[in-house]
């Protein structure tokens, strides 16, 4: 009986934690975009070099997007294709709006001068910031609810079986 309660409660907690995964990922992408933006502004370095540099940064290297994107670039793929490959490799936990925003970025990144690139990145950062706020709000509302629902379901089943 205890096992049933624990299992369902655990399931609720796991479901609730999915919100944390989304938050963490959006935060990592935001950090990456800030990094790309500052590197473009400061060093005017090519995107490939910036991504390579990001790979060596501990907090950004966790982004599952980076390595597949770099591998594709190194194998001769164009940036839009490589970027999409990277994003599609790292969609777990993200919502459609975030995936869309990130995928589109590859089509325009590196296409224009510094000012336009910074504008583009700041627009994407704004979108991701909104997504992050939304994810945090959602987590606040639903994470505890899922855990409680899991616990209650477990208790209900125990009572019914009793």
């Amino acid at each position, binding site marked *: 009986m205890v096992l049933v309660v624990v299992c369902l409660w655990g399931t609720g907690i796991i479901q609730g934690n999915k919100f944390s995964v989304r938050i963490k990922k959006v935060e990592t992408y935001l950090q990456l975009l800030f990094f790309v933006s500052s590197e473009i502004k400061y060093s005017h370095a090519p995107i490939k*070099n910036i991504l390579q540099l990001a790979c060596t940064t501990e907090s950004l290297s966790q982004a599952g997007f980076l390595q597949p994107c770099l591998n594709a670039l190194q194998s001769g793929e*164009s*940036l839009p294709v490589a970027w999409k490959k990277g994003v599609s490799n790292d969609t777990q936990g993200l919502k459609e709006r975030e995936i869309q925003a990130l995928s589109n970025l590859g089509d325009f990144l590196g*296409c224009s001068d510094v000012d336009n690139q910074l504008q583009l990145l700041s627009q994407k950062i704004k979108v991701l910031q909104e997504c992050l706020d939304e994810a945090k709000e959602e987590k606040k509302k639903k994470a505890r609810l899922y855990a409680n629902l899991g616990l209650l379901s477990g208790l209900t089943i125990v009572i019914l079986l009793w």
Partner: protein
Amino acid sequence: MLTGNFVSGRPKKGMDKSMQKQIQPILEEEKFEQAAAGIYEPLFQILKKVPLSLKKKTQEIRLRAGQPLCLSDGRDTYFITTDGTLCTEDLSNSYRVTQRDIEMSFRKICDYSVYSRQQEIRNGFITLQGGHRAGLCGTAVLENGELSGIRNISSINIRVAKEMIGAADELVRQVFVGNRPCSLLIAGPPCSGKTTVLRDLALQISDGRLGRYYKSCIIDERGEIAAMQNGLPQNKIGVCSEVMSGYKKGEAMQIALRCLSPDFIICDEIGSHQDVQAIEESINAGVGFIATVHSSNMDELVKRPQITQILQTGVFEKIVFLKNAACPGQIAEIITWGGKESNDKTVRNGSGSCMLVGNRDYTGE
């Protein structure tokens, strides 16, 4: 105190043949593929199929929107079909370059980061890995009356860089008496091999081949001499060379004099007012100058006010004129001009005319 192993050695003046053999340039067909790799992948795949003999002698890869993809060896033009075979005439099966090919090639040439090449785009060409040069042609974008970029790119011309180790041998033998390098102006028409000779000269000076290792500072404003990529030179420039890549010549000369204590300052294509000013400010600093300039002969050279102004300073001890594109790197004429040991010797010019440049009488032979 010196620690570790100290190996004494002579400069490479007396280098034996086995050592000389190690200094081999990259194979010409590899240079071709390296240059072609800069463009859009489908076109690169077609260019890979080009016969080896043509890869070796190709000087230019030309992409023009709506026109056939073609190669040039400096004399003839070859049109390429989709299967990589060559024709000397534009046939119906020639591969037609599309606007998308051009656009994607442009983005690839820019490393998919156009903003990082803005200055080069303004200059009209982009240096690729290996020192190859992609010339761009399109519609000018002006900002406050000045060129700020190019849109609707209609053609790209990729010049395959030819790194010719030993290209300056003849010049060294004829100009540097007793292997003593001096300030030198290398002049020649387009494609006469000025940059190639200059690059090899930089190598010889700073690599100990003239009896000692001279410290040279290469001011590579347009990335054509050393072709730096991620901080590494793509061409051989010698062990005692510093490369200032992308700097304006004037600023770079001042920085070099203040911070790098060079024996020689080496730069390509002087001719602007700023260059003149910088050179004037740098004379009497105990530094030699080696530079190139666009000019076929002395008549043309002295008609350029900025160059005349530079010559008047006496900074250049000798002027070397190269022949034309048909015989790149070959010396047409050497003129002893000024410098510390100058006796104001006048040497022939093609026209046989007599000119007065500043206080120097330039007399035809």
